[in-house]
């Protein structure tokens, strides 16, 4: 069964196209990752799928329900953790859960039992009666994950669940998600800009950039799809003029990208290329300032498909110049 089917889904805010004719599907039981920098359209996409933002054109079905015409059926069958922390600071953990259980129409006798067991699953049972304003960011996130499951949905949307959390809390949240997914037979659609998370946890990853889907596959296949098993990052001083051609002619080299005097060399065989590279540098009189050899990571995949580093995109796409955020703030 396909839990999510997306066809030519598009969202424009004025002249700005936040999501540009996306097509993909998510099978039941998958953990599906949307990877991309801020402003890539991940949140807009997830908001369309969770009925918070109406699409400009195209369609999508969630659990077989049309996201526009059957919005309330969609809402009843999904759990959503929005990017912003949405738990109520003045209420206790249990009260937060209880209000949402009522919004989903969970009968009284089932409510308390479900809430107690979910709070235990996210390790917050000792904090059930404490007001959320006493919670750390990671605890709030865990509470929101429990809250999102209060009506026992099979499909779970999480928009950057670990952004803003410290590394320990991030790991805790991910472990919790994996466990919940297995215990509850969940399908998860998650957005993130942490490559390592996506790599470890997602069955398939869609790389989104400027509203477009640039690659979609399992992390393994994505890494295998780009040239070179290893990446050498080298910086030189006194490199001769035709240095990039020399590097390209080294054994097993697939591709060379240069940025000022830093070179990124993709190779089928890292060690052999490295030995040849050092020999070539000595012959040409170039000094190696730094050298590192890495296995292909999702960062390389991202760079390959989008033509830029994720960290550059993260820096460029601050809230101020994202038309979507501008529009929201100005409403």
């Amino acid at each position, binding site marked *: 069964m396909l839990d999510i089917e997306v066809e030519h889904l598009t969202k424009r805010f004025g002249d700005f196209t936040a999501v540009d004719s996306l097509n993909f599907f998510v099978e039941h039981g998958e953990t599906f990752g949307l990877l991309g920098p801020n402003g890539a359209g991940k949140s807009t996409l997830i*908001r369309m799928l*969770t*009925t*918070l*933002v*109406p699409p400009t054109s195209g369609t999508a079905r969630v659990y077989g329900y049309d996201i526009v015409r059957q919005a*309330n059926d969609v*809402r*009843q069958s*999904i759990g*959503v953790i*929005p990017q*912003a*922390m*949405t*738990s*109520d600071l*003045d*209420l206790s953990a249990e*009260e937060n859960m209880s*209000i*949402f259980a*009522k*919004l*989903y*129409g969970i009968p009284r006798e089932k409510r308390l039992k479900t809430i107690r067991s979910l709070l235990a699953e996210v390790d917050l049972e000792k904090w059930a009666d404490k*007001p959320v304003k006493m919670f750390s960011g990671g605890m709030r996130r865990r509470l*929101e994950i429990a*809250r999102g499951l209060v009506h026992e949905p099979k499909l779970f949307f999480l928009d950057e669940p670990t952004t803003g959390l410290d590394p320990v809390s991030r790991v805790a949240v991910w472990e919790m998600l994996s466990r919940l997914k297995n215990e509850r037979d969940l399908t998860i659609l998650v957005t993130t800009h942490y490559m390592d998370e996506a790599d470890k946890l997602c069955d398939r990853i869609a790389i989104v950039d400027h509203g477009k889907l640039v690659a979609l596959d399992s992390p393994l296949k994505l890494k295998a799809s780009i040239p070179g098993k290893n990446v050498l990052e080298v910086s030189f001083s006194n490199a001769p003029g035709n240095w990039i051609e020399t590097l390209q002619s080294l054994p097993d080299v697939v591709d060379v990208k240069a940025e000022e005097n830093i070179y990124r060399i993709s190779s089928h065989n890292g060690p052999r290329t490295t030995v040849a590279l050092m020999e070539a540098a000595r012959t040409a009189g170039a000094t190696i300032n730094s050298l590192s050899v890495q296995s292909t990571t999702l960062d390389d995949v991202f760079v390959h498909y989008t033509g830029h580093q994720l960290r550059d995109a993260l820096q460029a796409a601050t809230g101020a110049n994202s038309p979507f955020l501008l529009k*929201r703030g100005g*409403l």
Partner: protein
Amino acid sequence: MHRVWAIIERDLRRFRRSPVLVIVSIIMPLVQLIVLGYAFGGKIKNLHLGVVDEDHGVPAIKIREMCQAVAVNAATFDTVAYADKTEVMRDLRDGKINGVLNIPPNFSRKVLAGINPQIALVEDNTDQFSASALEGAFNGLLVSYNTAPVPPRETNDVTLSVVEIYPYVPYIQFLLPGTITLSIFVSAMIGGGIIFIDDKARGLHEGYLVTPIRKFELILGFTLAGAAKAVIAGIVLITVGSLIAGIPDPLNPLRLARMLVMVVATSMALISMMFLIMVRVSDPLVPRAIFGMLNTVLYFPSGAVYPTESFPAWMKAIAVVDPFTYAVHGFKELVLKNTGLAAIQYDLLWLTVFTLLSLGLATALFKRTL
């Protein structure tokens, strides 16, 4: 309906944690009640009246003696004797005295001859209130001056005898119905539709917009929760305000029960109105910015501080639709006259119609998406 209750429960639980809202929404109206009530309500006393007697005849002395009597008893003014007109007029302009009584040189002769004797009252009419108080005092004074010591048995003069059907109502009591309405309005401002705007500003609304709650359930939930808080503020103000203003028998259970009906109707009308005004607003500064303006536009034309009969046509037009008008009228009937529900049925009717219109329109305009 269970979703409506969930929204109400959430709001009231939050309110229970910080009930400061009720305190804020009764403090301002109470302060206004006390300050305005005593600022405008009291009789004007201790004005200074300059007296220039250019006549010195017996009738003039009688007038001056009567002025002395006013100064000692009612104390509306005290008298300061002046020798010449130039000095007294200068003091009047400088604000040292509030008015001048001039008894002209041939006053006594005219009185005795019966040819239109006149005395002059020169007023500082930049202060209308003091001027009318002086005028009132002198009209009374001259009536008793002119009254013959032994009145004729029959007279052709038509006289007006005034019958007051209620005990004397001090201004502070006249003000109380408006103050009750104001406390409900302040609650509506800070506890009504604004809660949703604050949720929007903090992103909390995304949490419940992804649940299957419907537009109308959300609006009804917020309105009922807001109304519950406004009712609490209204009840507190009725009790405390009645005691401060000295309403007779303030805790009469039947009156309190009728007041409760009025408080509920007023709360629903004002809260749903606020939700309608704020339904498309996202910036939490907007409601705070327009609070004063709304307060002025709704409170003053309602007849809460001055009778609507004196208003120009455009202000009367506001008063006709303004829910404040009906709330204030209803509370006036109950607080000042202790009438039954029949006297306020049209107030209740309009407040209910107004509530339904606002809720309907707010639902139509509400955007369930981001």
